């Protein structure tokens, strides 16, 4: 029977699904019996024997699976593991199957063809030298104990260790179906069912009060909340960067903020209105970072406040003037950042009813097409559009390259109008090059002919061509990188181990060692030390960035694990990788940015972005899809570098702010 036991693993998924249908009359196909008989040298098994065998084997397997369930229950788990099966076999006095120790992964693949269906065991060839050269994985963290208050005298405190007091669905229900909530008592009931809080005597009294009062009075803030609000808003716009980082972190992670959300929203929109008029760039940046933090908080239902937040964000993208000295101050970075925020909110919140994305697109396009639009606004419009993704770039920006090129030419080669216009035109040019090159690299067939480009794209053509060539080269290089890197992710579950194999492809002096933790940073494992996030399907991920002198923080957000490492090297390798990878393979993105592009002599940054497949692989895909496309052209501003990562996590970076 030992041969057949292997099949336990194959049918386990079937067994698990059999919860609903009452009886399982599933029997292994007789072909499997034949195949197994052949594999041990018994040819020509009678059909009847096969049938008898398969019934017997199915029965035994079911028996073992039922025993294994016992072990699962006593292991206090919901998931049946291979070790449960081993123990069940041991109960039956059968030698357990050795070698299937992994917790998650069932090593069978399904294939069909030629009329035969097969489950087979996938064994890849492994290059030993790769394994030997792989740096050792990080030691898994040891078990540790952490205490927190689940309840204080019957009331559950709203701390990150506890689930958010009002789950997103409830917030949504409140905002979308207010009538339902108004019904007295229902709220209380709902909260009981959802496991929120207790009905202490006090709460009971409240409940009776609610009978007469509309429950919308939740906008009242407790004294603590008012204090918190004051502290947070002061820190967010204050001068102490460390405090600000903490405050933003709190906004991004705290589960109990939903009651303060309307205040925050108003604070931001009013703040933007005032500071745009006063051209206070720093404050605008702070406010945008607050928006970012709010959006990062998985427990908040922001939809209700978009009408205030989106205008504020759009203002920061397209406003004519955002700072006092447009020729010196780097308001471009703010526009980029806000544009990215806009893109993110389009992705998250756009639905067929509110149509945010198309409305935003229209707004941008309209003002871009306007002849009288200033360069600053023009830049904002283009940035806003191009952040919306390659499709938007392809349909809206590429066709206008020629026109835009001519306009740029007029400024840069024509008579000097004003310095400001010239700077604006320069920025628009580099922005267009950056975004268009990667899109063209993906869509336009080879060869890249300078003349052809000029014919197609006008003034910008030749420059664009060289960018495209570069982008293509890096994409190819990176594809290679990924293949190698995938192999070295050895221990997907307990700790995430990322390492780069060799330096082969990338050349240069990049050290092949794995993640080095820069002194100012802490590297968090996939499992945070505390149960920080309730983010259900997603794994944790961490963003870390460093550049010389940058004060860095990390943030835990939804989606994927992002690890950045810093090392200084002269390589200017950059590329992105096609995001189509098999679901079981960790998705690895390597992006290293060099000073090669339009470059200044900025410190280099490299990011390795690793995302693990989770159940929510679709969300992952989208996350990775949001990674900036190939970025061969680098803005010479370090702010750009910091913000590059906004898609996965924003790094509050002290040096970014030219105050």
């Amino acid at each position, binding site marked *: 029977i030992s041969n057949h036991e292997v099949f336990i693993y194959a049918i386990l998924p079937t067994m698990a699904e059999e919860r609903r249908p009452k009886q399982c009359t599933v029997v292994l196909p007789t072909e499997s019996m034949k195949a197994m008989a052949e594999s041990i040298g018994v040819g020509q098994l009678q059909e009847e024997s096969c049938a008898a065998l398969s019934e017997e084997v199915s029965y035994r397997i079911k*028996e073992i699976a*039922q025993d294994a369930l016992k072990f699962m*229950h006593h292991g206090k788990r919901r998931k049946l593991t291979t*070790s449960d099966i081993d123990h069940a076999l041991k*109960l039956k006095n059968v030698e357990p199957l050795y070698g299937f120790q992994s917790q998650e992964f069932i090593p069978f693949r399904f294939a069909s063809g030629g009329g035969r269906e097969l489950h087979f065991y996938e064994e890849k060839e492994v290059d030993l030298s790769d394994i030997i050269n792989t740096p050792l994985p990080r030691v898994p963290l040891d*078990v540790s*104990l952490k205490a927190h208050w*689940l309840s204080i005298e019957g009331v559950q405190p709203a701390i990150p260790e506890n*689930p958010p007091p009002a789950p997103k669905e409830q917030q949504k229900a409140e905002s979308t179906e207010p009538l339902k909530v108004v019904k007295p008592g229902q709220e209380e009931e709902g909260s009981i069912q959802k496991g929120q809080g*207790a009905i202490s005597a006090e709460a009971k009294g409240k409940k009776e009060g609610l009978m007469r009062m509309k429950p919308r009075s939740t906008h009242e803030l407790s004294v603590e909340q008012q204090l918190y609000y004051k502290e947070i808003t002061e820190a967010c716009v204050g001068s102490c960067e460390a405090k600000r980082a903490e405050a933003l972190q709190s906004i991004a992670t705290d589960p109990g903020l939903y009651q303060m959300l309307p205040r925050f929203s108003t604070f931001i929109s009013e703040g933007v209105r005032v500071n745009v008029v006063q051209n206070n760039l720093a404050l605008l940046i702070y406010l945008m970072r607050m928006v970012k933090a709010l959006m990062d908080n998985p427990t908040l239902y922001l939809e209700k406040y978009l009408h205030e937040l989106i205008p504020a964000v759009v203002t920061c993208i397209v406003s004519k003037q955002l700072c006092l000295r447009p020729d010196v101050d780097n308001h471009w970075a703010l526009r980029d950042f806000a544009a990215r925020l806009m893109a993110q909110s389009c992705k998250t919140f756009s639905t067929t009813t509110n149509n945010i994305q198309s409305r935003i697109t229209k707004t941008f396009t309209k003002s871009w097409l306007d002849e009288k639009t200033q360069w600053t606004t023009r830049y904002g419009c283009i940035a806003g559009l191009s952040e919306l993704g390659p499709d938007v770039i392809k349909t809206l920006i590429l066709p206008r390259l020629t026109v835009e090129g001519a306009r740029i030419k007029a400024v840069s080669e024509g008579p000097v109008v004003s310095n400001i216009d010239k700077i604006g035109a320069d920025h628009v040019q580099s922005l267009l090059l950056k975004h268009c090159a990667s899109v063209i690299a993906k869509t336009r067939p080879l060869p890249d002919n300078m003349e052809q480009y000029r014919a197609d794209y006008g003034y910008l053509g030749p420059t664009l061509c060289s960018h495209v060539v570069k982008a293509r080269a890096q994409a190819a290089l990176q594809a290679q990188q990924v293949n190698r890197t995938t192999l070295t992710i050895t221990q997907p579950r307990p700790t995430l181990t990322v390492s780069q194999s060799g330096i082969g492809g990338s050349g240069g002096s990049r050290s092949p060692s794995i993640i080095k933790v820069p002194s100012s940073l802490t590297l968090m494992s996939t499992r945070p030390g505390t149960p920080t996030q309730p983010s259900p399907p997603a794994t944790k991920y961490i963003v870390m960035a460093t550049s010389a002198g940058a004060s860095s923080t990390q943030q835990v957000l939804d989606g994927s694990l992002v690890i950045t490492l810093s090392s200084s090297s002269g390589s200017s390798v950059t590329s992105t990788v096609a995001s189509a990878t098999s679901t079981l393979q960790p998705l690895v993105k390597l992006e290293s940015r060099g000073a090669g592009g339009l470059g200044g002599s900025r410190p280099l940054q490299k990011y390795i972005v690793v995302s693990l497949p989770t159940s929510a692989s679709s969300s992952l895909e989208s996350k990775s899809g949001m990674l900036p496309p190939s970025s061969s052209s680098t803005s010479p501003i370090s702010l750009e570098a910091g913000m590059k990562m906004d898609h996965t996590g924003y790094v509050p970076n002290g040096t970014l702010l030219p105050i």
Partner: protein
Amino acid sequence: MAAVQDGQLNMEVEKDIKTEITNDGSGNINANSSSPGSTSSGGKSKSPAGSGEDQQTLLAVLQFLKRNKLTESVDILRREAGLSADADDSPVSDSAGAGSGGVPNVSADGGDANSLLSRVSIATPVAPPATAPPKATGSMASGGEDQPDVNVVLSAYSQQGDPVLYPLYYNGLKKFIESVLDCHRAELSQVFYPLFVHMYLELVYNNHENEAKQFFEKFSGDQECYYEEDLRILSSMSKKEHMKGNETMLDFRTSKFVLRISRDSYQLLKRHLQERQNNQIWNIIQEHLYIDIFDGMPRSKSQIDAMSGSLAGEGKRDANKAKVFYGLLKEPEIEVPLDDEDEEAENEEGKPKKKKPKKDSMGSKSKKQDPNAPQQTRIPLPELKDSDKLDKIMNMKEATKKIRLSPDNLPSICFYSFLNAYQGLTAVDFTDDSSLIAGGFADSTVRVWSVTPKKLRRVKSAADLSNIDKESDDVLERIMDEKTASESKILYGHSGPVYGISFSPDRNYLLSSSEDGTVRLWSLQTFTCLVGYKGHNYPVWDTQFSPYGYYFISGGHDRVARLWATDHYQPLRMFAGHLADITCTLFHPNSNYVATGSADRTIRLWDVLTGNCVRILTGHKGPIHSLAFSPNGKFMASGATDGRVLLWDVGHGLMVGELKGHSDTIYALKFSRDGEILASGSMDNTVKLWDTLKAFDDVELDDFTAATGHIHLPENSQELLLGTYMTKSTPVIHLHFTRRNLLLAAGAYNP
């Protein structure tokens, strides 16, 4: 009131023998037979045929032992039973023949225990004598040597009916039951499930595979949903060969399914079956069902549903008649050097509470013995050491600072999350003073943490110890090795996941039970293993120290709970009777009883002194995973995989409440120190608090309900729910009230 059949006793006998043989293997007969009290489980005290039957049983056991060359055991048993040395050879066939009422003795190897067993089992008066014996011998010949009982057990199915008629019979009965008056319908519907099972098994046994399949498909949908789990196992059995060695199968066969039916309903059924000459069904009812008839009103559907659901029907009412001394033992009087304030406080709230740690330092108030309490010396308890006394004093001081809980004053909950446990946390325990936490893990380790600033230290090595000045005052400090101080210690020794863990009350020892079949005793002074108790050959699911230390109980896959004393490497008592794995074990606060919960969906209460089963509590619809006694010993709570908590009155053996609310297995239950609040923790990541005071108050026990056990459960479990606290993603697997009534919860964070 009367049992329907005379053959019942025979069946019991056979069952007992069988459990012994299958469960213990030959190695452990020793322990069992030396305490004959434990052999007979359940309430078969009134035996009409008395001594003759007993002797027959004994002889059968003797035969078995002899055959397996266990001569020592034979001697012991003989001595214990007072049998003469030659009594066992000759009279076997005689007594068997006499006992079994005229069944011809056809067995080939006359004196064999096998044949005796088979005769006993066939000996039911209703079994058609023409068909049974040849079949019995036939199947015996084909059966393996290793499990002699299986064929015997199966032989009862050998009677042949026309397989085509089975669905007709069943349908006929169904139609009849549907047509009877409402009040009887619910009661009579109880017979559907056991009938269905036995008819199906008969079909399978007689190789009518297709008919069995059809029969199953046709009628399995009619069965109550809580039997789903069993039906699934049943459906996978489609061949006679499968029945051999299948535990569930054996359970069905060896244990009679117990039904409680009012006399009127029963008469109705009987008349119907006799009118129709429906022998097939009548035979099954006679053979495999035990119908417990009572006089009075038929029970309602909800009453029946509340009690049914176990593998073998409800407990017999007789089984719950024995008196249980549920009161608490008197606490020893300890002279306490009380601080004045403490004394004040003590006197203020000094109204006598039935609470375990409740002691009266002045010895004035609780001098009276609780009438329900067992005698102080009913079982020998270890003597108090000085350190124990100190601890009790501490306990009392703490108790004065205890928060009085009530629905308006809920406890705070402190949650201990095990991080990075990778789903490997399988058991947790706290010490009574809440200073230590122990965790059992799937990787076979046991880890102990100190949750107070006091670190864990090991005693110095023997060589170092000899250098210590033994006269010094702080010798207890000096023997500790400062170098080994750490917040946690890991205990290595098991070779399988650790499923049960328990601290001794004096905090010197830790017990752990594991998949590897052993229970280990660890010293918390040296952090080494002291003893490995071997006896369970299969996974040991749970173990628990007695509240007075010294004794402990363990139970596991082999369906036998064993009572041990720490200084004996063999069990003192073996409690056999459960029909499936024992999943959880618990001592009564007075240490005279142990409760075991099982995968057969029953809870049994065993008397430590006699080894008898004194309560069988049915009503759960899934394997029971947690038990808790109220501090006054009067009530018990149990939680199962079905997400319900049931409350029991131990003294009357009645279900007194049902708490619905959890959506997944309940792994942790605990009463607050004064018993006002019950906390339950579940796989669904919540801790819930229940108002037990109200729950127990609501129960009205008039004489009738107490006598019949038919209780109307209040339908208000939502009103009893005081609070629900959700964790982020941490199943709650242990709960503990500190001496000041702070609730501690523990579980592994499961991202």
